[in-house]
């Protein structure tokens, strides 16, 4: 295998990692602040991708993709907020199993609603011409869209870090991660905070769906695929840790891309072996903090 081909595979892995990071950071955020394992997180990703197809279709042309990028995360965040207010809110303080199962119920409902609206046919989303094709550095051609995805992941990672470390909302979220009960006692409206966090998490998944759109086939079942990969990412990195999610995403994305190249039939299995090995070695993930959950 030539160096160019290897670089290309690593690039493929890193662009997958970029999408995984964006999606999984939402999953990790929701778990960290609310202790909810959101199985419906992949559904937000799928809804994001499908709604992007619709929005891009309405607007058309270059505006279409950009418009979807701006509008869709808000739509998906609103959906997330609705689900939190309508159902999950009633389950705080009950057994975790019930919350987990409630999100599972939403996975089922959303998958059928998407099937009802869009049917079984795969959809596709086109990236604007500016982001298509490849850019040449020396002897190696880099696909432009992959570079764009990586840049997007870095921008979103930095924004999330700024949000968490520099704003009042971020302070409340960090407080919720360590002790939600105390947070309520000092006068923070925990219930509203949770709605915002859940909507933010859903919005990130929706954004991931739009961004992944041009590189994947948009079809039913993509919710299940991404949720398993996202779980692998946050488990390897440590639930609730932003840095951990980034490391986990790169590890899963690149491992999978290289696995596909060298031992195609075992690529996904290798990811799970890594996941089991990390958990056996460090039960709370590479960057996770031991906690009662």
């Amino acid at each position, binding site marked *: 295998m030539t160096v160019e081909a290897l670089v290309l595979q690593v690039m493929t892995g890193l662009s997958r990692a970029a999408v995984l990071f964006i999606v999984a950071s939402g999953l990790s955020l929701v778990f960290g602040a*609310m*202790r909810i*394992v959101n199985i419906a997180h992949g559904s937000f990703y799928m809804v994001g991708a499908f709604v992007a197809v619709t929005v891009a279709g309405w607007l058309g042309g270059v505006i279409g993709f950009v418009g979807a990028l701006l509008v869709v995360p808000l739509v998906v965040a609103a959906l997330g907020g609705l689900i939190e207010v309508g*159902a999950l*809110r*009633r*389950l*705080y*303080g*009950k*057994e*975790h*199993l*019930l919350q*987990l*199962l*409630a999100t*599972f*119920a*939403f*996975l*089922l*409902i959303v*998958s*059928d*609603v998407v*099937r*009802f609206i869009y049917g079984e046919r795969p959809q596709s989303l086109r990236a604007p011409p500016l982001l298509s094709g490849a850019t040449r550095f020396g002897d190696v051609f880099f696909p432009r869209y992959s570079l764009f995805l990586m840049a997007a992941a870095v921008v979103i990672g930095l924004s999330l870090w700024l949000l968490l470390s520099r704003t009042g909302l971020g302070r409340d979220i960090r407080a919720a991660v360590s002790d*939600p*009960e*105390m*947070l*309520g*006692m000092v006068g923070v409206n*925990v*219930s509203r905070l*949770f709605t915002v966090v859940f909507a933010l998490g859903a919005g990130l998944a929706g954004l991931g769906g739009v961004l992944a759109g041009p590189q994947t086939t948009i079809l039913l079942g993509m919710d*299940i695929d991404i949720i*398993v990969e996202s*779980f*692998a990412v946050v*488990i390897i990195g440590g*639930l609730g840790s932003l840095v951990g999610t980034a490391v986990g995403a790169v590890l899963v994305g690149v491992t999978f891309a290289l696995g596909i190249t060298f031992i195609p*039939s*075992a690529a*996904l*299995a290798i990811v*799970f*072996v890594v*996941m*089991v090995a990390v*958990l*056996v070695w460090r*039960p*709370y993930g590479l960057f996770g903090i031991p906690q*009662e*959950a």
Partner: protein
Amino acid sequence: MRGRLTASTGWAIAALVALLAPLLLNERQMFVLMSIVILAVFATSYNVLLGYTGMVSFAHAAYYGIGAYAVTLAWVHLGWSPLAGFLLAPVAAGAIGYVTGLVALRATRLYFSLLTLAIGQLLFLVAFQWRGLTRGDDGIFGMQLPLFLEPATNRYYFLLVLAAIALAILSVAMRSPFGATLRAIRENRDRAGFLGIKVKRYELAAFTLGTAFAGWAGGMYAFFDRGSFPLLLDWTTSADPIFTTLIGGLNSFAGPVIGAVVLGLLQDFVTRNFLYFNVVLGTVLLAIILFMPGGIVEGAHRLAAAGGSRRRRTHPEQPADREQPAAAGTRSKS
């Protein structure tokens, strides 16, 4: 005492209905009934983990699938009769369950659950990718059954006997001191540990017992479908016994069985009339989670209590000190 009496009356009626049902049903309905009987064993085996010990595993379907593959692989590769192969099903599933349980139980609670997700998917991928052994995605179908099992009625009674044996064994185990210890662990893991109970050892025993009977149910499935395929092992299949148990009720032995009947009939009815079963199932689950978290069994208890003397509004099977960590800040506001 009265509870015990109504319970045994309930089981007697259920047995009678199960025995006489073939007289009234056509062949299609017989197959629905068979799938219910299998799901009842699968869900009850899962409840050893979930309801009795408080462990949430995403890998349970993997052992169910292993049970089914034990029968079909012994038939394909060793030329065994399915009847002999069936004996392998719980043994193979239990043995693999024991080894993987050792690994998964290095973690607790949520991280245990996530570790089971990884282990279960790993087992799924073995079935999916190891074409030489399992024929991969194509699955193994058309297994030759012994002649006496060809008619649907006979096959149904055969599966019913297997289900009765499994339920009897699990019922005895869960009523024994072993079952009581598991419940103690579920109620308060730390306190059970302080009492000198070797918690991990009991959890591993429960995991092994549960997975062995998941394999038993999977072996039954191989007779039902005359085959096996990788999706049986997938984590989404693990949702079936969880949903079943939730619908019936987590906190009783009969819950998963009742849930299997309700879910099986619901699925049959909905899929024959409507294209979208998931949205119905999701809505039913959500309604149960929000309004009747104890499932049908507890709902019936509550209904009986409301209809009879309105004495105490307590939930005897859900002690107050059931662990409720996290998000506690919102409890006062809700």
